[in-house]
């Protein structure tokens, strides 16, 4: 009886920490969604932007010796500049190209940002400490990682504020108009350029927040870019164009991969998390090829 109780608790703990990890994936996936929604670009550089933002935050803190909030503001400003440059020198020159060409262009951006970030801030591992809590709390036998709890709350707050931004502000409405139809949006006087700069800036800030969460966990280092690979199944499952999809997708992937690793893994040799997340997302796609919340693809001849 006690064993069963323990197993049940353990199951709950796995589920809960899977969900929390999932929100951390969602944070990374959110950046992808924002950009894909507004400009139809599959932004391979999201991982690099996340690393660059986190590196800059730590760099500003160290270099200027300022409080992290000031460094945060400086980094946000920097990400806006990056967004402006991307629009000016890359996307602006590739208007109306096919998706895969734009995707390749973001790969160019990735290489550039990786090289540029390391040139300025170095390739060494950096400790990011903005006073986020560490360790775990004991909830009647269930250990919960404090940092992940904060990350989950941050992700929730971010989604709520993005939702308000998209639905209630003028810029947000313009963004949605652009996402629906570029031509129509332009003809009612919305500047595509401004919108793109705003979207890339917001994606940069989302990347910064994700970078802070993951950086506090792992230290700021090049490996952070690899997190983009963890966000892809989330993206696929939730649909490339849906913000709630990124969150729900993250929760499903996070919980799914942890449960699979613990309850299926031991029978097949373990370490199945990576491919299981993709397989799970693929299974969903076979039912809904546009992702859970993606817009329905209508094909005409």
């Amino acid at each position, binding site marked *: 009886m006690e064993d069963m109780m323990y197993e049940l608790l353990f199951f709950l703990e796995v589920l809960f920490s899977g969900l929390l990890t999932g929100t951390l994936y969602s944070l990374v996936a959110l950046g992808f969604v924002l950009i894909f929604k507004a400009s139809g670009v*599959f932004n391979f550089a999201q991982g690099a932007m996340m690393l660059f933002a986190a590196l800059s935050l730590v760099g500003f803190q160290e270099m200027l010796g300022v409080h992290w909030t000031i460094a945060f503001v400086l980094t946000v400003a920097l990400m806006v500049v990056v967004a402006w440059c991307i629009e000016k*020198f*890359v996307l602006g*020159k*590739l208007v109306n*190209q*096919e*998706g*895969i*060409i734009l*995707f*390749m*262009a973001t*790969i*160019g*951006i*990735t*290489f*550039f*940002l*990786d*090289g*540029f970030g*390391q*040139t300025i801030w170095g*390739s060494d591992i950096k400790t990011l400490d903005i006073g986020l809590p560490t360790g775990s709390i004991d909830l009647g036998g269930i250990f919960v990682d404090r940092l992940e709890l904060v990350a989950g709350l941050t992700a929730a707050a971010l989604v709520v504020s993005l939702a308000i931004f998209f639905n209630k502000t003028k810029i947000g409405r313009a963004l949605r108009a652009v996402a629906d139809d570029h031509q129509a949006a332009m003809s009612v006087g919305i500047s595509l350029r401004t919108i793109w700069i705003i979207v890339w800036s917001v994606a940069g800030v989302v990347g910064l927040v994700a970078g802070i969460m993951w950086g506090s966990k792992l230290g700021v280092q090049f490996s952070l870019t690899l997190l983009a*690979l963890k966000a*892809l*199944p989330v*993206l*696929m499952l939730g649909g*490339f164009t849906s913000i709630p999809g990124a969150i729900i997708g993250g929760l499903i992937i996070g919980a799914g991969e942890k449960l699979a690793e613990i309850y299926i893994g031991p029978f*097949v*040799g373990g*370490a*199945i998390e*990576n*491919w299981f997340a*993709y*397989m799970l*997302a*693929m299974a969903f*796609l*076979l039912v809904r*090829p*546009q*992702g859970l919340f993606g817009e329905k*693809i209508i*094909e005409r*001849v």
Partner: protein
Amino acid sequence: MFYREAGQFKSSYKEDQAIFPILQDRVGIAAILLFAYIAIPFVMSDYLIGAIMTPFLILALAAIGLNILTGYAGQISLGTGAFMAVGAFSAYKFATFSIMLGGAEATLPLVVTILLAGVVTAIVGIMFGIPSLRIKGFYLAVATLAAQFFIEWLLVKVGWFTNYSPSGVITAPPLVILGFEFNTPAEKYLFTLTFVAAMALLAKNLVRSHIGRGWMAIRDMDIAAEIIGFRPLQTKLSAFAVSSFFCGVAGALWAFVHLGTVEPEAFGINRSFAILFMVIIGGMGSILGSFIGAAFITLLPIFLNNVPPLIGWNIGVDMIAHLEFMIFGVLIIFFLIVEPHGLARLWTIGKEKLRSWPFPY
């Protein structure tokens, strides 16, 4: 003037359907092959042959494979690395499979081993191609990552694939054909070149056949292609099969000819990405583009890395590497802006220019 086909008459269907119907192309290809077979092994240093040309050719072969799938059939795949791994590991399994023949141990001939590895990869490719019937575009690209991670995991997990090697690595047998051992970089290069040239020609021929036209129809609009009578199932899966065959052979060559001893990580996710980059930069739907793309992605970074020390600019290797990344990124964007349809398109445009040059009127 140099590229005018006026005066070259075709008097039979056979001539009209030749792979290279224009004389200049035939001369050009012959010259390139002559150069590749005779000049390069004699003139170039071992470094250029062993560390630059051989890997370049193998990756170009993989890029041709992916180009068939992505450029001709329109199915984006990020599982190329895994398919190469399947090729490498199955080639190893075939090579170490021996039968007792009248008391003597007999193993499969090397060429058969490599081609069989391609066949195994084709079968695996078909299996992972099935979701493409339902999933499209970037969703499919992400779905093929499932193949990438699953296969990598499987090769690490199942000891049988490595003949229970404790380190999980495979060691390629010596390259022997009919008693001749390919040992020096030049010999290995010629071995690779023969494979790559033959298969590139095969690919060139295949894409203008009925099958190839089917792929292109599916790429341009699959519903329309279905309506005019191409079956999506056969067409898409045949693209996956042929593409994987090429990647499998490339993987086997990578393990046997280039590296010698490999671990599954040699075919990781970065390899898949790199090969997709080659296809996009080189030109989708172009065999020539696969070669140009492979050259761009593999040779350019090495070139950039070599420049600063050569011009006596002493800035430390890390700085050089960072510069290499930045310049490489900028060049990718630059070429996309100049010619979004790939570098091969530049050659097509150049050909048009040459046709009338120097008398444009």
